């Protein structure tokens, strides 16, 4: 039967990649515990959903929020949205109702696709609480003026029969998508309480991940185990999209530790990536030593890797530096063998498409130690709703706020934040946001939130409550849990009087000394 030629689709766009990779047919793209998606299914299921979205008014440039954990439903939703040239806005499933409000409003989301539930969280209820309405269609909510429709689960979108006309409409939409179109608005925690939506285009993300796949030799023969969440850039780009582009298989697990180990034995991943502290629980399981994880040859989840692949000392393996603004990893080095001692703690060099320098923040001149600046085609377009000059300096450099050292060979070493963002177990926490929440919950109580160094988590969120003896910590924790994601809630509370706070000559609190004091 003669087939109508499909319109041209640019290979540097998500629909272009998807069309090419659909040829991998029944090979698996994604396995999340018992939930699996093959390449043909990724293409066909997302086409069905795309057709239904198109019929509901979603089109090129529409902003569609996705509130789902790692799952085939997330994958299908993301692919459906972006193959139409609409913009995906992944939202953290850890978000409280208040945080969701800020994200939905700040990103001007027009549509929301949410999973009914994820890991015991009733996301449907959270969405209702957040938008303050049970309605899902024809929304006209002054608090969310751009929001028109909510879908809980994909059932309604996948139920529709795919007509030829609908399929052609999807293909026509795909042909219009350009590498310059926005693919995703990914959120980062900001240094103020307002999270920033980072804009990345199709061309940027796809070329970046192609380049990084070559760097780390990620090919279709590999199977990657990573639990990085898809709603943050690392999981989205460096795990999910790079797997799609490589034609490989991604394995995730949200199950109980023993079931996760069963999954790893059955799926036999060859690579792993993520935050090592999150797999300590697997290595601590009874019977772990008898588990066969010999398939794992490369990666950075050392606690579960075979002994012969582990570093003598993790600091002698090249670290990865990633940021939402750089579309995931920005500094990279070969992480599969040990570095010489003089390179201890190295983060390697910039990935293709990114130029980096270290600048003395006072003089603006290149320096061996100072603030880390990046620019290049793989850097974000900017923050959603902000002008370019608010995101970059006049010469196009993005000031990361990270403090770095650069050695004579051009290798970079991370020294800390120029600012004060707390990095805990792979997540970033804005102290000012937590301080604001504490103030709200205590009726204006003063606090200082700091990151205290921790061997496992990197840093631990710690709140210094000032002149607040007698505060009921459990009640405060419960109150904070209504406002903040679990990872933002201080693990430790410390009481100090105002007189006990170390101060700088300027009279401001000396945060460095404070960290030392409570450590």
């Amino acid at each position, binding site marked *: 039967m003669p087939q109508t030629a499909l319109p041209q689709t640019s290979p540097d766009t998500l629909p272009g990649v998807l069309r090419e990779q659909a040829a991998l047919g029944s090979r698996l793209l994604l396995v999340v515990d018992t939930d699996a998606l093959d390449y043909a299914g990724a293409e066909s299921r997302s086409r069905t959903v795309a057709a239904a979205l198109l019929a509901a008014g979603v*089109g090129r440039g529409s902003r569609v929020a996705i509130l789902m954990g790692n799952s085939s439903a997330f994958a299908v939703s993301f692919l459906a949205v972006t193959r139409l040239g609409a913009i995906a806005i992944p939202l953290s499933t850890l978000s409280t109702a208040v945080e969701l409000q800020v994200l939905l409003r700040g990103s*001007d989301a027009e549509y929301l696709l949410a999973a009914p539930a994820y890991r015991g969280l009733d996301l449907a209820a959270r969405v209702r609480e957040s938008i303050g309405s049970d309605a899902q269609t024809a929304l*006209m909510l*002054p608090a969310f003026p751009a929001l028109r429709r909510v879908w809980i689960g994909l059932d309604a979108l996948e139920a529709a029969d795919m007509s030829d006309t609908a399929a052609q409409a999807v293909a026509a*939409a795909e042909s*219009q998508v350009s590498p*310059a179109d926005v693919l995703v608005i990914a959120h980062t925690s900001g240094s103020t309480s307002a999270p920033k939506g980072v804009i990345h*285009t199709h061309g940027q993300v796809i070329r970046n991940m192609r380049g990084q796949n070559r760097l780390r030799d990620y090919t279709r023969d590999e199977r990657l185990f990573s639990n990085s969440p898809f709603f943050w850039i690392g999981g989205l780009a460096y795990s999910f999209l790079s797997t799609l582009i490589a034609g490989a298989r991604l394995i995730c697990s949200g199950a109980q530790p023993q079931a996760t180990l069963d999954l790893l034995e059955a799926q036999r991943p060859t690579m792993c990536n993520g935050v090592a502290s999150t797999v300590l629980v697997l290595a601590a399981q009874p019977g772990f030593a008898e588990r066969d994880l010999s398939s794992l040859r490369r990666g950075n989840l050392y606690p579960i890797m075979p002994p012969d692949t582990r570093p003598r000392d993790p600091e002698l393996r090249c670290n990865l530096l990633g940021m939402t603004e750089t579309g995931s990893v920005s500094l990279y080095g070969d992480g599969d063998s040990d570095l010489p001692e003089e390179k201890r703690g190295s983060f390697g060099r910039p990935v293709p498409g990114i130029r980096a320098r270290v600048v003395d923040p006072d003089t603006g001149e290149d320096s061996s130690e100072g603030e880390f600046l990046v620019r290049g085609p793989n850097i974000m377009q*900017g923050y959603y709703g902000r*002008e370019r000059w608010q995101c970059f300096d006049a010469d196009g450099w993005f000031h990361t706020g990270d403090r770095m050292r650069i050695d004579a060979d051009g290798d970079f070493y991370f020294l800390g934040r120029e600012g004060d963002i707390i990095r805990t177990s792979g997540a970033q926490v804005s102290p000012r946001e937590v301080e604001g929440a504490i103030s709200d919950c205590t009726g204006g109580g003063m606090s200082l939130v700091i990151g205290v160094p921790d061997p496992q988590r990197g840093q631990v969120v710690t709140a210094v409550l000032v002149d607040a003896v007698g505060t009921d910590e459990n009640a405060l924790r419960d109150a904070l849990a209504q406002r903040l994601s679990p990872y933002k809630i201080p693990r430790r509370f410390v009481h100090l009087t105002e007189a006990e706070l170390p101060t700088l000559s300027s009279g401001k609190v000396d945060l460095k000394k404070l960290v030392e004091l409570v450590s």
Partner: protein
Amino acid sequence: MSIETLPALLALRAEDSPGVDAVVDHDQRVGYAELDTRSRERAAWLVARGVNKGHRVGLLMENGCEWALNACAAMRIGATLVPLSTLLKPPELAAQLALAGVRQLVATPAFHGRDYRAELADLDRAALPSLAAVYFSDELGDGGTPDRFAVTDALADSVRPGDDMVVIFTSGSGGTPRGVIHTHGGALRANAAGLEARCIRRGERLYLPMPLFWAGGFAGGLVSALNAGATLLTEAIAEPAQTLGFLQREQVTLFRGWPDQAAQIALHPDFHPRQLETLKPGSLPALLPASPHGERTRQASLFGMTETFGPCCGYAMDTGMPADKAGSCGKPFAGIELRIVDPDSGEPLPAGKTGCLQLRGRNLFRGICGREREDTFTADGWFASGDLGRLDEDGFFYFAGRGDDMIKLRGVSVFPAEIANALESLASVQRAFVTGLELEGQLHVGAAILPEPGAYCVPLELERELATRLTSFKVPSRWHVLSSLEELPRTPTGKVDRPALCALLLGSA
């Protein structure tokens, strides 16, 4: 501190100038309070039909109050306005609708002999998957239920300076039209930065015979008026006799546009110099009575482009420029940096050297539809405009033509503007238009000249005179003497039509 979003500007003007005319056409006038309330009513109607923040809303309509109302309705809710030229042929229109990803199109049913209702019905909608709806201006409605108004107002409150405001297509005189994207903040600041030099102040009544769908009319006219709290006088069709009556009735104070547009009116038998007595200095000189000293002020020729949201260089138009800056376009307005680079090496050139113009700054456009940033800007943020020129020691900019006008003679880049300037410095030559042209495989310099009134130009004599001022190979060898400026071929936007000029020069051998 300028206002940085369109909805904030509409609200401010409704408050501080409620009774002042915002826009006046032949049939209608809309004051600032009315512009705010009526554009809100129209916006609520559009919101009820699915228009949303960020949607690209096309506007295909003749100049007039309705154009301004629909444009403000779309922009006030954060939709991105896409003005479309009424001159576009159907395939060109389809290409621009696709390139900009227009979701909803507001169109005039018919204008100037074109039946848009029929033409748009013939559009291949399957090839335009983004286009959800077409509304003709005679079927637009206003208002809606209270919740629609609440959402309409909340959308207006959500608009930030960083949100896209407009996609303006270039007229295409330099190749394929480009859809140039401006944010609210960038556009309104760029415009505000030039208002003082352009003498557009509160209370002025500005006439500009340019279509609102290109940067000249949209930025230079409509947005200038809103930004200044002035009045825009606009016409669907400019016809000298009618225009004169309109301008007299509406007490025009500023007349801007292309010099020939003013000249045409000045030539009209009904025109006499005292007729437009409300006109102020800073208007096009042809319409102003000669000054008591018998000389006209030395006005800077404003320089700008779609990418700079109208003029980005200028100088106080009422007082004129310092004598030693004759021929300059003035200085760059705040928020825009200019530099000149070597055409071959790309290295910045010192003051006084002619080369390729590059621009950057907070007020520059954000990007071009369908084009990646790296294909538009250098890594350090410079945009190569394709123009030629030089900057003097004091930062005054001198325009020297388009880069594609540059003539490569004997391996040397020759700037047509340099030759034209040399010609215009001769006593007998009023205007000169110079271009490179190919004849029998050889590149030649050609010049069309308009003699000074009463003067008589003989090409051989001009060649002899020029030889004392220019290197011999720069002296034109093909000539055409124009009987009037009307004889000069122009594009629809009033720019010199280069291919037609070449044909003219080759034809009059």
